[in-house]
């Protein structure tokens, strides 16, 4: 019996290694070839160079699109936090007709393929007289970012002990005081994590942006256009940089959420 167990375990480990290879091999290849001396991605690699990073920095449309993307991600995340966090609080605190429906509607843009949300917002904005461009992209992004912020903060609020809120109010704190001194400190890591996720989702978004951008290009839209206009090796370089940033973001957000769990355990 023991032997069969270890045999099963070997198969499982082999499968896990294959799965991880499948997940990571393509992106590792891109990172590796961003330092390739040759301008084609073939085997074996030509030699080591930082040349494509220099080319990338001097690619004006690419840097412009990066600035655009950061702008959209920043404004979109701010709107999502300013609307989503109070919304989550309201849903946590009050009962009202349509609450269940609201819970479902808010996550629709995350559940449905981006193309559906993209064309829906496009047809609406066209009727409303808002042209494709910066504003349209910001409105579209904010909408699906609310769908990531609100559920995350709402979940965190529901894990909170309701007693601390009551205690605060029994001790004479006003609603605002309770929010700023009692609730906010307890949900701040969830809010921060949601903001970080929103920012990175917005930076990477294509399907909604694709229908709303017009001539306003964001970074992934620009990269997409570059891949279609024949091969340019600086794509490897820009992708590698984004990869590094996302890996840092995920490690960072995971470490703060771990801290949060410890905190929650201590308070209970």
């Amino acid at each position, binding site marked *: *019996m023991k032997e*069969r*167990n270890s045999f099963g375990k070997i198969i*499982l*480990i082999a*499968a*896990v290694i294959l*799965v*991880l290879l*499948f*997940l*990571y091999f*393509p*992106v590792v*290849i*891109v990172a590796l*070839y961003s330092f390739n001396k040759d301008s084609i*991605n*073939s*085997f*074996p690699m030509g030699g080591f160079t930082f040349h494509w990073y220099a080319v990338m920095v001097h690619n004006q449309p690419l840097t412009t699109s990066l600035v655009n993307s950061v702008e959209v991600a920043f404004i979109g995340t701010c709107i999502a936090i300013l609307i*989503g966090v*109070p*919304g989550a609080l*309201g*849903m946590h605190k*009050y009962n*009202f007709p349509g609450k269940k429906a*609201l819970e479902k*509607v*808010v996550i*629709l843009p995350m*559940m*449905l*393929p*981006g*193309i*559906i*949300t993209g*064309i*829906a917002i*496009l*047809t*609406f904005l066209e*009727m409303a007289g808002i042209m494709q461009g910066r504003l349209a992209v910001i409105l*579209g992004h*904010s909408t699906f970012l609310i769908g990531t912020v609100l559920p995350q903060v709402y979940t965190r609020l529901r894990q909170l002990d309701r007693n601390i809120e009551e205690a605060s109010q029994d001790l004479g704190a006003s609603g605002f005081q309770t929010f700023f001194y009692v609730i906010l400190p307890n949900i701040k890591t969830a809010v921060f994590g949601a903001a970080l996720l929103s920012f990175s989702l917005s*930076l990477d978004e*294509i399907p909604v942006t694709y*229908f709303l951008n017009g001539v306003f290009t964001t970074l*992934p839209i620009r990269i*997409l256009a570059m*891949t279609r206009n024949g*091969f340019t090796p600086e794509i490897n370089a820009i*992708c590698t940089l984004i*990869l590094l940033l*996302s890996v840092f973001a*995920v*490690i960072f957000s*995971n470490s703060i959420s771990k801290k949060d769990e410890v905190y929650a355990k201590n308070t209970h």
Partner: protein
Amino acid sequence: MRLHGSKDFMKYGILAPVVIWLMLFLIIPYFNLLMYSFWKNGAFAVEHVFTLGNYTKFFSVKRGSSAPVWVLIDTFRIALTVTVCAVVISYPLAYFINFGIKNAKFKKMFYMLAIIPLWISYVMKAYSWTIILGTHGLLNSFLMWAGITDKPVGMFLYNDFSVVTAMVNIYVPFVLMPMYTSLEQIPKNLIDASEDLGCNSVRTFFKVVFPLSLPGVITGATYAFTLSMGDFLAPQLLGGATSSTKIANIVQLQFGTSNNWPYGAAIGVVILMLILILLALTGKVEKHFSKLDIEGEKA
């Protein structure tokens, strides 16, 4: 209690922005899309005249394979393939992190390895497969370097194979996460109990672990299926000229060069309806299994 007015003010004050925003930029747009799908595409502009023409155009089955409804069926087939592959690939990893590692440090490391791909850029993942599978790409140049072939093999890229491979790679993380969560919630003593009662690990897996992980599997599979149903980028980057055009590409075309928004809206509505039906169904199935879960715990 004493400040009834201010309490109401607070309630509406914090709920109104989200309700108004979602109304304006989500609910009304979805209904607007529905309305658009019943309008006529005139020679110069969209005519606000009711017609069913967009739907009959979509569903009219002509001889030959170019009828859009066939593309829908083909996309369905591709999405199903992607879903099955993604579930099969995700399960061992999700299982291994939960039950295969005892060391907490390793567990954390593998967990990170599993969630990082969720944060990696879509366009990077899709693009990486074009440089691996392309005619002058890595795989071909490797095969030629190794002397296995002397001419580049064209069959790797620009077909359904490359589209499915890339989509599986892209959507595995979406399946992995809910799967991991539902495996994590299985009480470890349930497994001990099963083994104490004489079940071997294979039996324990099929009788205890797998049934309890089903809600997560279903959630993940639903994600993979809906996302690949609506994906127009992977087919565009990795698919062939016509053979691997998917339903979302036809929608994309109507809002682009074909400039027939009402028709595009109609196809969008068809996709939307299919997905909403699917979500309702999987929601029911999931609830059923979660109920089993709770009853099992009580018993």
